[in-house]
């Protein structure tokens, strides 16, 4: 059985949901503002005869008419970076400011990390962590290509991340774009569900809870933590947020979401979640012609 069937009761338009999951994903690039203003990047694409359409909610995101920006001058110069449209959302929800100290707990391969650096005008500190050496090498390569100078790359287990090396004790903001069952990437990787098991969903949820807890503990009171996944499973989304609402000092807060979304669910199978998870966002592929996604914004209260 298609594992996505289990979410059919959650979506309002079953047919549109399954149809969208079968379609390939549009090819989207983000303009790297560390290296180029969006206007100049668009002018360079025009010169090169590369067709695109700006995403209506963000002038830095361009949907290309054809696949792959890899062989164009603006890409060579690090002005562009391939990034799925919906994956630009968590950084926007986090809203990092120049000069701040920001933790990206699961950073590789770095699309969101380098987006954070660009939003901070490449000033302050982004600590980009991952626990996999191969993925870290991709993060390093991307950051270098995009000219990011405010990134510190670390290899630690996010669940017991130590700030000891850095000479400061807490972050202003943290982002947990957690390892997940990736159900929402079905349009990019059609075989992503071949290995799907409920056991994996539960085991990855335990890791997610550990990393998100650590992010809240490591962020200053009044600071912001954003939690996101590219999956639909409530076990990995609302249940993880519900867990930290119970165990850590934090609350769910609203953010301006430029994409169409559905509220987080408060009931799933035999479980009930804190009512405030309704203020988190589920994004289904058919709503904005993107991948599937989940995003929650939390404020640290103590």
């Amino acid at each position, binding site marked *: 059985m298609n594992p996505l069937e289990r979410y059919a009761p959650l979506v309002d338009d079953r047919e549109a949901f399954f149809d969208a999951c079968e379609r390939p994903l549009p090819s989207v690039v983000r303009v790297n503002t560390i290296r180029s203003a969006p206007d100049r990047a668009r002018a360079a694409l025009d010169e090169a005869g590369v067709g695109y359409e700006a995403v209506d909610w963000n002038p830095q995101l361009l949907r290309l008419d054809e696949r792959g920006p890899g062989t164009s*001058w603006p890409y060579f110069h690090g002005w562009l970076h391939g990034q799925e449209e919906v994956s630009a959302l968590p950084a926007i929800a986090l809203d990092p400011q120049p000069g701040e100290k920001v933790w990206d707990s699961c950073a590789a391969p770095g699309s969101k990390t380098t987006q954070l650096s660009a939003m901070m005008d490449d000033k302050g500190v982004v600590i980009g962590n991952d626990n996999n050496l191969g993925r870290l090498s991709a993060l390093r390569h991307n950051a270098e290509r995009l000219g990011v*100078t*405010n990134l*510190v*790359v670390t290899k630690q287990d996010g669940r017991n991340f130590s700030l000891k*090396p850095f000479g400061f004790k807490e972050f202003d903001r943290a982002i947990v774009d957690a390892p997940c069952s990736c159900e929402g990437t079905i349009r990019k990787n059609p075989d992503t569900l071949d290995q799907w098991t409920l056991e994996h969903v539960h085991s990855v949820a335990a890791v997610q809870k550990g990393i998100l807890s650590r992010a809240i503990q490591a962020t200053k009171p009044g600071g912001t933590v954003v939690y996101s996944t590219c999956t639909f499973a409530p076990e990995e989304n609302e249940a993880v947020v519900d867990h930290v609402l119970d165990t850590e000092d934090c609350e769910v807060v609203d953010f301006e979401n430029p994409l169409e979304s559905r509220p987080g669910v408060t009931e799933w199978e035999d479980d009930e979640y804190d009512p405030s998870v309704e203020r988190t966002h589920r994004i289904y592929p058919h709503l904005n012609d993107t991948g599937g996604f989940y995003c929650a914004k939390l404020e640290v209260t103590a």
Partner: protein
Amino acid sequence: MSDPETGDGESSDGEELRDNVGQRFGRLPATPGDREVEGRASRAEVIDFFEERFGIEPAVFEGFSFWEKGKGKIWIFADEMPTPIRIEGLGMTVLRTRQEHWKPTHSAVQRFGHHATKNVVDLTPEQAATFARGEDQDFPEWDGDWGYLIASHELAGEPEPIGVGLYVYDELRSTVPKGNQEELPVR
């Protein structure tokens, strides 16, 4: 067991220089006189290099810190960190030292090259495409210094640095790293 970079076990007269430790980042000393690690370049020398070779104003690097990891590989970081620090990456690579001719990195030239006022060569569309492919080319039109130059071309109405070229014997050699080389349209 003494730690060669935290200073434990350092000789009391401070005259003995410690060895560079490859696996971690050490901040560059402000000047050669502040040097505590053998052979390590100083911040002042790095900034002088970019000013003397490429005319890049020292003010461009205000607020950045410089670090060494590995032998002679210099990194630039937008903020500060305690030194030494054992991590996987700290900002971006910027310069290769501990060799006769210091060499700026491809990424440094792409990131900071637009501040350069000398030793910049403007390439035609054909030359730029050759350079981006990583190929060497005849370049008799240059009558300036031998050594590392910034190769530039025009893109979207303004000059844009492409990468580091090595000019010797009327030839412009591309040093664009293999992983960055690209077959790009002539325009």
